[in-house]
């Protein structure tokens, strides 16, 4: 018997002519863990909101069809009863918090349900110990890290004991360790407590292995409903779908007959091609893939020496940082939430000034330069691209930067729009564009000044695989032209694919920096799927292309030996 039954659901947001949900028919059984996949704007969030009853009650719009929760039509269920049956955790932990203290946030939903005091106290105790938040139960939310906030959001929903848990990209803003922790908890809730889970995610590599069922959405429709990961892999091999995780993609591209869903399955397949006497330990990565440094591009762009910085509250955020970058280098800065990565970027472009130590940008001491002075040479794109966009057209956004910096448009804005595939939107309002397009407009507004150093803070947040690849390719082109690129991201797969070097930050210090092949291999959390796959079999395999070639080589050796 399905706990969720959707019959012919079509939904239009107010004042839109394109349906956000288009003829959805779906049954979900009790206890299933359903993974909802699809590109940006495919309708995942809308479907989740329809199951939570927020569509149409909260959003309005045109609604046809039925959503049944436990055989009862959702529009006939009292809101209080529905909140007890269906719990929803949103993407941004910050925006869903109503109260300021952790304990009050957890009880907020229960109070709204009118539960008795004793029961609330028991449930607070239960969820706080189950989700390991007892140590900061009496703290305040602004003091928590991103992962802790998301755990509190999850606890506040679980305290209402819903039978159905909906999660809308709950790990998109978390570092790999915190993301893994949240997903492990979700899995445990599903397995131990039998809670039905619907999980919308962009970073498939984190949760693909958990799913009982995979739904793929495109343009408001469920285009594929797959009962297991193998079915997904088979489909991925046949069709060019956008949401294939890197691991499966590699096996597809290597024309391997079997497509794994998990790293474990992948290693099993890989082992079937290897015999004891034919274990390959050659580091293909060292020979063929490592980028040779161009001797013409040894111009130093950035040099940080013994940088220390504390905020006004006395919190020491950066501790003795020494770091340099040359033209044409592409470095990714990784580390857990709140470790000082964004602060370091702000130091580099002079939004903040060092307490001690020195930052030299293009040979000039940053203490004597303002952020506005450096804006020509350093392009900085913060976490939220919407902070950049306010003008009526995309073209005006680019002209605005040029005007501020006193630069003339020698055809650069046309070139940048062309390169970022934005020419057709030059006259469009940036706020009417999709997430990926908006992000490209913000990037264009920075690139138009031809910066020699580009700083990007979490640029892949909210982007699907296709958009991420597009962004990565643009950055590689810029790198090839000599732009030094420093990216802060939690996205290990993106770092593995596009960066040259990785720097790891922890508690205000850079604890390691090196070649991505060395840095991203043999790590539990800061390691891409492909590297995990080849761990102990072939050293230093990190990128998709590298993995494909190694896999093809292994398969070829195997087939040749069979022939012999």
């Amino acid at each position, binding site marked *: 018997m399905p706990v969720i039954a959707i019959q012919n659901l079509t939904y239009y947001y107010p004042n839109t002519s394109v349906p956000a949900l288009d003829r959805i028919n779906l049954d979900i059984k009790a206890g299933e863990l359903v993974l909802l996949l699809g590109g940006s704007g495919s309708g995942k969030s809308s479907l989740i909101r329809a199951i939570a009853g927020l569509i149409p009650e909260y959003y309005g719009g045109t609604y046809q069809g039925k959503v049944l929760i436990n055989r009862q039509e959702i529009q006939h269920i009292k809101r209080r009863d529905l909140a007890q049956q269906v719990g929803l955790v*949103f993407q941004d932990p910050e925006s869903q*918090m109503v109260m*300021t203290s952790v304990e009050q946030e957890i009880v907020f939903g229960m109070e709204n349900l009118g539960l008795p005091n004793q029961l609330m106290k028991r449930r607070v105790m239960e969820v706080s110990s189950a989700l390991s938040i007892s140590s900061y139960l009496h703290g305040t939310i602004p003091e928590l890290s991103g992962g802790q906030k998301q755990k509190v959001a999850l606890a506040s929903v679980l305290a209402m004991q819903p039978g159905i848990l909906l999660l809308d990209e709950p790990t998109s803003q978390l570092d790999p360790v915190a993301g893994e922790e949240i997903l492990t908890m979700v899995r445990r809730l599903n397995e131990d407590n039998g809670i039905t889970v619907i999980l919308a995610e962009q970073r498939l590599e984190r949760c693909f292995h958990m799913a009982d069922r995979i739904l793929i959405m495109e343009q408001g429709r469920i285009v594929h409903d797959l009962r297991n990961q193998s079915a997904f892999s088979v489909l991925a091999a046949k069709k060019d779908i956008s949401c294939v995780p890197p691991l499966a993609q590699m096996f597809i591209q290597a024309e391997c007959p079997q497509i794994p869903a998990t790293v474990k399955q992948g290693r099993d397949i890989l082992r079937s091609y290897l015999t004891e006497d034919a274990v390959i330990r050659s580091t293909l990565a060292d020979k063929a893939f490592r980028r040779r440094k161009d001797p013409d591009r040894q111009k130093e762009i950035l040099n940080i020496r013994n940088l220390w910085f504390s905020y006004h509250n006395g919190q020491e955020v950066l501790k003795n940082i020494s770091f340099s970058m040359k033209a044409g280098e592409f470095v990714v800065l990784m580390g857990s939430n709140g470790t000082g990565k964004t602060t370091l970027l702000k130091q580099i472009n002079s939004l903040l000034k060092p307490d001690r130590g020195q930052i030299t940008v293009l040979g000039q001491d940053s203490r004597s330069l303002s952020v506005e002075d450096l804006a020509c040479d350093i392009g900085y794109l913060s976490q939220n691209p919407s*902070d950049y966009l*306010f003008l009526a057209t995309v073209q005006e956004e680019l002209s605005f930067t040029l005007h501020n910096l006193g630069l003339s448009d020698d055809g650069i804005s046309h070139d940048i729009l062309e390169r970022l595939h934005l020419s057709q939107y030059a006259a469009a309002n940036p706020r009417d564009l999709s997430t990926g397009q908006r992000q490209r407009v913000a990037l264009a507004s920075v690139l138009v000044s031809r910066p020699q150093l580009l700083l990007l803070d979490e640029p892949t947040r909210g982007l699907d695989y296709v958009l991420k690849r597009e962004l990565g390719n643009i950055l590689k082109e810029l790198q090839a032209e000599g732009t030094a690129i420093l990216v802060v991201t939690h996205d290990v797969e993106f770092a593995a694919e596009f960066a040259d070097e990785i720097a790891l930050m922890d508690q205000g210090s850079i604890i390691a920096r090196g070649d991505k092949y060395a840095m991203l291999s043999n790590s539990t959390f800061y390691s891409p799927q492909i590297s995990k796959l080849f761990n102990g079999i072939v050293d230093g395999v990190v990128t998709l292309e590298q993995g494909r070639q190694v896999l093809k080589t292994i398969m070829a050796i195997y087939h040749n030996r069979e022939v012999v």
Partner: protein
Amino acid sequence: MLAFHEKFNLIHQLHPITNLVFTGVVFLLALICSHPLYLLVLFMATGTVIIAAGHREEWLSYLKFSLIMILMLMIVNVTFVHYGETVLYTGPRLPVIGELIITLEALAYAGGMGLRLLVIISIFCLYTYAIHPDKVLKLFSHRGGKSVLVVTLATRLFPLMVQDYIRITEAQRCRGVKFGSGNWYERIKKTLPVFKILLVSSMDRSLQLAESMHARGYGSGRPSSYQIELWRSRDFIIIPVLGLGLLSGLWSLMHGWSSYNYYPRLADFQSEEIIMAAVIMLTLSFPAILNWGWLKCRSLRSKI
């Protein structure tokens, strides 16, 4: 960023309603009184309570920020308003404004309005730093109407808006916008886009917050209470005293003592006005006086 931090003093230990009564009484009196003496008394009483609550530093930074606004207000008022018989300065003829005449009365009027602004800003400072936002929100979610809830949430979101403002300004500075350069008109012109983005992002944030509240059953029926705020003797003592302060203000209003004639010449202060202002000062400073006793006298602390 949470402005409120629990401190060991009486003001922080009061029932949220008592604190709201204080802010409400001062706010109301600041609106109905135009007499500079009354406004000064309100300012001093609020300041005393803020200092008693342990927020002197924060209050001073609020005042520093407000003084710039008040200065602008005074410049605009004395430039455009030519009423008043005591001319302090006669300047050249300016376009649109005409002859520049600065009068003592216009200056005093602007000072009075500035004082009113200081009282309101001080009240906001007290509300932000000395009253737990969760307690206020719960109070109104249980009893208040929708509009009160909106105001409560707006004040709860204010620190987040400040964060947004800083972030957006930084993003624009990275595009070469120099907010600190140029004349006043140019500076305002540069700041307008920031407010435009701020408005949109605040709307988005409010919608997400409302959605989260809706999804967790907010407003779906009568809520229960996890923690019940206790009424203590201190609340029963302070509220009637504050009520007396309010009645004194209303009494003054009825007799016209709380209003003041700035034009055509500054009026003299009457003895009744001074007496009632002193009563208001005493009653509204009462929480601070009681706080002093609460901190100094252990037996008083145990009794109230």
